[in-house]
Every structure is written in structure tokens, then in C-alpha cells.
């Protein structure tokens, strides 16, 4: 309760939550407001926004409803942000926890691998993964999760390093708890808050990564993704710039919402750090 009150004390956090709820509502109401396939032909191509009441946001190069694509795109972005983040954070937690808890050569090997992942530009690794495994939406989501785990892993490891010799852990060890139980039952709950806050960063980056892939036409062309629409609009940028402009604003607001919520959570969970 205290945390909720602390969260709502920040206007930025409230704006973020509001924006996020709007995006979620868009995703939820997409098939109800636009029962037809968003990628199906709907009318004349390149209708400007606000000129035809049937297409409030206009149509794209091939006559598909932009508003419908924006609403369905919210689903894709949330799906990608959500699932890729869960994958990245889970891998990160397991590797970071094992590495920080055991130390020694285990830590050495795992940190070497983490370092390799961090030395390799993650967008390049993403390109390699897409080149190898194809650009199906599931593959894209998993690939984004795979390139995003090193930062959460380092964060978890740092938390474990500072927690593993605390009294409650020693007490658990004296009681004869198994390593697994100590790691996941005792230490992890204490190490989790900063990792969860960081998950908002991972989510924001995941959404941006997918949109960049889609813009380069390397993501799944068969889903209504905002990035796809921006890439499509590039062909008619000279005059009908709105085709690219509208989905870009949607991405911007979604990423902004996720970052603001993350920052709000951070301030609410660590009141000491407020204002940083």
C-alpha cells in the first residue's frame, strides 16, 4: 500500500501508467473495433487522415486501414515486449544467480560468456539469428530475448554477490538448506526488486529492436507491426509522410509509457534514490 501511494505521488509515473493503460486498451479492443483483418484491402490507397470518416487515420500504400493496423500493432508490440522481456529476465536471473552464488570458476566461465555477448553488438547478433532461423514472429521474439539477457544477468549477479554472505543466508546454510532452495527461495526474493525495475528497460529496448527489424523488412511481414508500417511508408515518404509518421508516434508513446512506469516503480521502491 505504501508503495502504491509512493508511486502515485509522481506525476510522470501517473502519465506513464495512463499511457500504458491506453495502449493495453487499444490492444484489447482491436478485434472488437476492427473485426476485419487489418492487413486486408479496405479502400483506396493513400487516403489522407481526417478526410474520410471510414478511415480516421487514412490508408497506406496498398489501401489498408492505418487505424486498424495501429490497434492490432499495439498487440504485437505488447506481445513482443512482454514475452521477450520474460525470456531475457529469466535467462539473466538464472545465469546471474548461479554466477553470483557459486563464484570461482563457474562465475569466471559464465561472466566470460556474458562478456562475449556484450562485446558483440546486440543488433548484429539479432541479424545473425534472424538470418539463421528466419523471421517468423515467434523466432523474432525469442531472438530478441536471447540478445537482451546480459544486463539483467550482471544486475542479478551483483545483487547475489552482496547478499550471499548475509546472516540470513548463513542461517539458512546452517539449517542445512540445499543450494537450489537457498538461491531461489531465500536470496532471489531479496535480489528481485532492482531486476524487475530493470525489466522495464529491457521491455522498452525490445519494442524498439523489433520495430527496427520490421523497418528493415527482416521481421514477420504477416503481422500488423508498427515497424512494418513505417518501413512501408518509407516508399511514399516524399508526399504521404503520414504513413510513417503515425506508427512512429505509437511506438514513441508506448516506449515512453514503459520507461515512465519503470522509473515510477524505481522511485517508489527506492525512495532514497528519488530525484536521481
Amino acid at each position, binding site marked *: 500500500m505504501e508503495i502504491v501511494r509512493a508511486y502515485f505521488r509522481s506525476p510522470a509515473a501517473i502519465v506513464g501508467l495512463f499511457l500504458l493503460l491506453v495502449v493495453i486498451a487499444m490492444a484489447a479492443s482491436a478485434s472488437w473495433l476492427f473485426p476485419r483483418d487489418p492487413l486486408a484491402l479496405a479502400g483506396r490507397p493513400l487516403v489522407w487522415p481526417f478526410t474520410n470518416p471510414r478511415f480516421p487515420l487514412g490508408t497506406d500504400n496498398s489501401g489498408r486501414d492505418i487505424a486498424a493496423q495501429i490497434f492490432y500493432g499495439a498487440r504485437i508490440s505488447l506481445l513482443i515486449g512482454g514475452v521477450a522481456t520474460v525470456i531475457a529476465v529469466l535467462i539473466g536471473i538464472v545465469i546471474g544467480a548461479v554466477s553470483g552464488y557459486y563464484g570461482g570458476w563457474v562465475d569466471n566461465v559464465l561472466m566470460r560468456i556474458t562478456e562475449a555477448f556484450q562485446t558483440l553488438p546486440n*543488433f*548484429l547478433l539479432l541479424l545473425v539469428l534472424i538470418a539463421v532461423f528466419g523471421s517468423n514472429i515467434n523466432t523474432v521474439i525469442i531472438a530478441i530475448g536471447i540478445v537482451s539477457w546480459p544486463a539483467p544477468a550482471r544486475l542479478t549477479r551483483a545483487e547475489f554477490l552482496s547478499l550471499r554472505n548475509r546472516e540470513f543466508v548463513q542461517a539458512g546454510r546452517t539449517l542445512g538448506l540445499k543450494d537450489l532452495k537457498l538461491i531461489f527461495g531465500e536470496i532471489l526474493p531479496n535480489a528481485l526488486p532492482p531486476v524487475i525495475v530493470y525489466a522495464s528497460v529491457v521491455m522498452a529496448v525490445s519494442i524498439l529492436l523489433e520495430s527496427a527489424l520490421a523497418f528493415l523488412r527482416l521481421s514477420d511481414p504477416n503481422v500488423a507491426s508498427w515497424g512494418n508500417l513505417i518501413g512501408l511508408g518509407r516508399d511514399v515518404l516524399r508526399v504521404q509522410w503520414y504513413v510513417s509518421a503515425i506508427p512512429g508516434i505509437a511506438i514513441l508513446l508506448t516506449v515512453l509509457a514503459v520507461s515512465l512506469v519503470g522509473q515510477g516503480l524505481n522511485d517508489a521502491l527506492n525512495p532514497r534514490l528519488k530525484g536521481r
Partner: protein
Amino acid sequence: MRVLSLAGRRLAASIPTLILILVGVFLLLQFAPGDTVDAMMAQMGGGDARTAEDLRRFYGLDLSVSAQLGNYLWRLVRFDLGFSAIYGKPVATVIAERLPATILLMTASLSFAFFFGLILGVIAARGVNKWPDTLISTVGLIFYATPSFWFGLMAIVVFSIYLQWLPAGGLSDITSTATGIRAVLDTARHLILPTLTLGLIFLAIYLRIMRASMLEVLNLDFVRTARSKGLDETRIITRHVLRNALLPMVTLIGLQAGTMLGGSVVVESVFSLPGLGRLAYESVVQRDLNTLLGIIFVSALLVITVNFIVDLIYARLDPRITTGV
């Protein structure tokens, strides 16, 4: 000298990382559907199975995976990155042609982001929680959330199509025959929009870190001492606070080098710059796996080099690092 040996040791420690990356990506690429020969055959408009077999033997693709990996690493030791069948040139040549544009773009963006991030961060920290701080922090948040390629496209719409102030792409004007200073100015004009586009998100990150770091240092005892000595505020900021507050910024350059290289893939595609990132994209589309692997190697080297330089700067800013405390 100690600085160099320290940084040198860090450099030596990155060799296993480099090998790990190469072996990992090499093995990963074995799963790719179709190899270079398939791509070449497709380009030639098809051919019989015998030709494909001959070509595979010629490029050493008929060997076992471990033998191929061994061959590749052995050639790498001699700085031979193999041959790009798509471009018909050695991979090293292809990459060397594309590297300058990327390095130019990265240096420009980094300088832009670092310089303005520093200034805006200092302004925000000095007026903490007043309107300049709120304004700068809000703008920073928006920049952070902007997809770079979209910003690039919108910048093209405004500055190249409507206002016609700046060129929309390329590295130089193909119709111009200018040399010397005129050619440099021409390239600089072409680089303005790409630099802003790539640098924007880093500007947002730098100003945020700079603000936080300034706030932290401003509360330290030595700043209070300097104030009580009667030094004026500007002098305290420039001589005492800035040097200490810069440390996290410098660390960040090393951490972000890879991200920036990744970002250049997209930015170079938007502005059709002949750089490494665009080459990476093209080699993915054309299944030129040899070139892709070469790019991975060179990018990893680039990131390691940036980190080496960061180590040197770090030691210069903070003498405690070299005295081994």
C-alpha cells in the same frame, strides 16, 4: 607506463572473448538454411549439382564443421577473412571500403551525444527540480523513447523535402567534383542528419547519467570544502565537480560502443550511407555468410578497441587507478 600495462592486460583478457564470439557465431551460421554456394548458384540463375559440388570443394565447404572452423581461425590469424562470393572480392577489402563511413558516423555521433549530454546534464543538475531541469529531463525521456530510424525519416521529411536545407542521403554529392576543403564541407553537410539520428538516444542516456552523477558529486565533502574556501560556483563546477562527475560518462562510452554500432545498421540504411552496418544488413539479405562473419569479427575488434581507449582516458581522469588503490 603503468596505465599502458594495465590497459594492455585488459586487452589481452579480451582475446578469449573474441575467440568465443567467433566460434559461437561460426557454429551458429552452420544452421543457416543454404550456404554461400546456394546464394551464388541463385545469382547465376541456377546450375547443375556437379558445379555446386565443385564450388563447395573450391571454397572448402565440403569439409567437416570442425575442420572448417579450424581453417577459418587459422586464416584469421593471418588476417585473411576469406572471400566474398557476392562482391567477388576478399572480405577484408569489402569491409575496409565500408569501415571509414561507419567510424566517421560513430565518432561524430559520440562527440555530439557526449558534448551536449554533458552540457545539458550540468544545466539540469544545477537547477535541480526547477524548470530547466524538468524541461531537459522530459526532452531526454522523449528522445530515449524515439525509434532512431523514425526520427531519421521525419528529419528527412522536414529538412530535406520541405525545407530542402540538407541532403537526404549518401555521403557526398555525386554530381560535385569538389576537392579539398569543399569536399570535406560537403561530406559534413551529408553527415548532419545521420549524426543527429544516431546520437539522439545516446544524448538522452548521457544527459541522464551526467545529471545523476553531478548531483552525487555536488553532495561530497570536497565540494563543501571548496565552497567554504570561497571559490566561485563556476570554478567549483569546472575544476572540481566536472572531473569527478565525468567518470561514469566515460565508462558508458565503453559500454555503449556495441549498441552504437548496432544502431548504425539502421541509420546507415535510412540515409543510404556506404558503411559497415549497411553491409551487415546486405549480407544478411544476400546470405553472404563469410562477409557477415567478417563483420562480426571487425565489430568485436572495434568494441574492444573503444574499451581500450576508454581505459586509457579513465586512468587519465582518475589517477587513483594507476597508483593501484
